């Protein structure tokens, strides 16, 4: 009953949002596109990182791969096929990276994922300048702003639906065990590596698609634009702010923060990164479990799982 009601509300909101382009001006539509993009990115980020505790800064690597695929292929292939190819490339890169690195813990993974974004950017730049002889590409696609918005909205809905669905499958259950205690998880026969890789890949494909769908908005694309590390940072902070381990957390975090950043970058372009940093510190100190977690702590009854005293987790952080 509760689930059905939740679906009904979500569906109503989705329909209302789908009709939004008919009522708003081009500026607001631009905002909505950016907002939906970040809601999707933050939700996709949390799908993997929020549930496994692996802080990933590779968001922009996949986002950029998506955008670049569209830039390179949009003139030679029909658009839906381009999206498919982008998703496939995202899948391959994620599988490679996942197989190689998901054994790393803590800070190693953070640095690795950040380096991955830099690496991809440098490789693309190098390829474009020395092999292709140009830097930057133009994208001419007959897509209006509302088309991009609808695609993103559908992707956002799909991401949330997937997250919800995964929570109730065996995969979701396995994740819960892994998050609580990896040793126990491996003893009851959960394939830890594959569970992580599956989730990482899924989250990466969604990020790739966000980049691919948003690409036509820019018209002109170059590595410095689509591989800007700020995208990774913003995604991370939005998901954390909302609460990365909850279904609606990242979305709820992305909405206020996106608007805030939009306002900050317009009003204080010079002091933007100082304010961003301060906000980061405040969130880490005051809201370690995000807004959703904070509200749960304050107002709600505790879920049965939280009542059970959790044993202190011992992970080999130094490995």
């Amino acid at each position, binding site marked *: 009953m509760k689930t059905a009601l939740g679906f009904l509300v979500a569906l109503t909101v989705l329909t209302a949002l789908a009709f939004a382009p008919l009522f708003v001006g081009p500026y607001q539509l631009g905002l909505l596109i950016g907002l939906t993009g970040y809601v999707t990115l933050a939700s996709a980020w949390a799908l993997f990182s929020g549930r496994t505790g692996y802080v990933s800064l590779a968001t922009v690597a996949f986002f950029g791969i998506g955008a670049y695929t569209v830039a390179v292929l949009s003139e030679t292939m029909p658009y839906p096929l381009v999206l498919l190819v982008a998703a496939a490339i995202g899948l391959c890169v994620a599988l490679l990276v996942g197989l190689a690195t998901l054994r790393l813990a803590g800070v190693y993974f953070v640095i*690795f994922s950040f380096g991955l974004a830099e*690496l991809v950017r440098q490789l693309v730049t190098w390829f474009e300048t020395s092999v292709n002889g140009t830097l930057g590409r133009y994208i001419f696609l007959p897509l209006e702003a509302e088309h991009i918005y609808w695609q993103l909205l559908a992707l956002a809905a799909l991401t949330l639906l997937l997250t919800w669905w995964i929570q109730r499958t065996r995969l979701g259950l396995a994740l819960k065990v892994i998050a609580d205690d990896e040793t126990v998880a491996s003893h009851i026969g959960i394939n830890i590596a594959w569970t992580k890789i599956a989730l990482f890949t899924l989250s990466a494909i969604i990020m790739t698609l966000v980049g691919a769908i948003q690409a036509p908005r820019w018209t002109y694309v170059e590595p410095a634009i689509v591989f800007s590390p700020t995208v990774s940072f913003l995604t991370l902070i939005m998901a*954390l702010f909302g609460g990365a381990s909850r279904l609606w957390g990242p979305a709820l975090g992305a909405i206020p923060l996106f608007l805030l950043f939009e306002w900050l970058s317009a009003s204080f372009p010079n002091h933007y990164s100082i304010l*961003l940093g301060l906000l*980061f510190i405040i969130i880490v100190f005051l809201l370690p479990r995000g807004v959703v977690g904070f509200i749960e702590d304050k107002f709600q009854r505790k879920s049965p799982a939280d009542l059970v005293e959790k044993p202190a987790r011992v*992970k080999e*952080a*130094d490995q």
Partner: protein
Amino acid sequence: MLMTTLIAGLVLGGSYALLAMGLTIQYGIARTMNLAYGETIIASAFAAYLLYNNLGISPILGLVIIAPAGFVFGWLVYGILMRPLVARSENTATLEINSILATFGLLFVIQGVMLVIFGGNYISYNYLNFGVEIIGVRVAANRLLALGLALTIGGGLYLLLTRTRWGTTLRAVAVNPAAAPLVGIDANRAARFAFALGGALASSGGVVVSMYQTFTASSGVIFTMKALIVVIMGGVGNLAGALFAGLILGLSETFVAAYISPGLTIAAVYIIFLVILLCRPAGLFGKVQK
């Protein structure tokens, strides 16, 4: 060509080793990952530039001012930002994640302040910019000085940590923070001291690097990444490992830039990093735990 590249690589590698030593102390002893490490480096580079260009103070003299300032800065950051997180975190894994996130914020704040003051331009200054003949190759004097300084500071630190009682205390905390109090060591104080010492090393490294390299307000992140790669390659907390790994990194970067393409240096660094991580996750000299 070969000798020139070799010496340039050694100079770069020496600086990397020095930078990585500070980080390996912070991470190995204080158990906190400081992502704003590179920003300390760049801030010190800017300080050296200001002192030299505006007041005519040579970078060597500037080092005497800037390194203690880095120490104080590290001391304050640990006390204000890290200490509450250490108290709050229930184990090393959470502490790591928390310190990463908090220093992330710090990274943006410092970088933002530098962008406001200095803008986004590349900056360098002319100090000892003349060639010196050494084993048949002409090398800029400032590079030689940088290498000398890096080796002196790094070597001094090594002796300090291995030969004094006080260094032994720090190493004891690095080996086992839980057991250190049993033999009368104040682990908390040691951690704070180690963090501050790391700050002083980052500052010295920044001054050394600024003598021969151009830098911008936003290049700190790259330095953090390289320092971390060196730390991981050398094994966390291992000073000799950091020296060795730093030289490898500096040499391979210079050789790739000279013989393949300057656009592929990060790719080269990264491939080395990946191979090390996959084959020897505990570092080149680390013992395999399990």
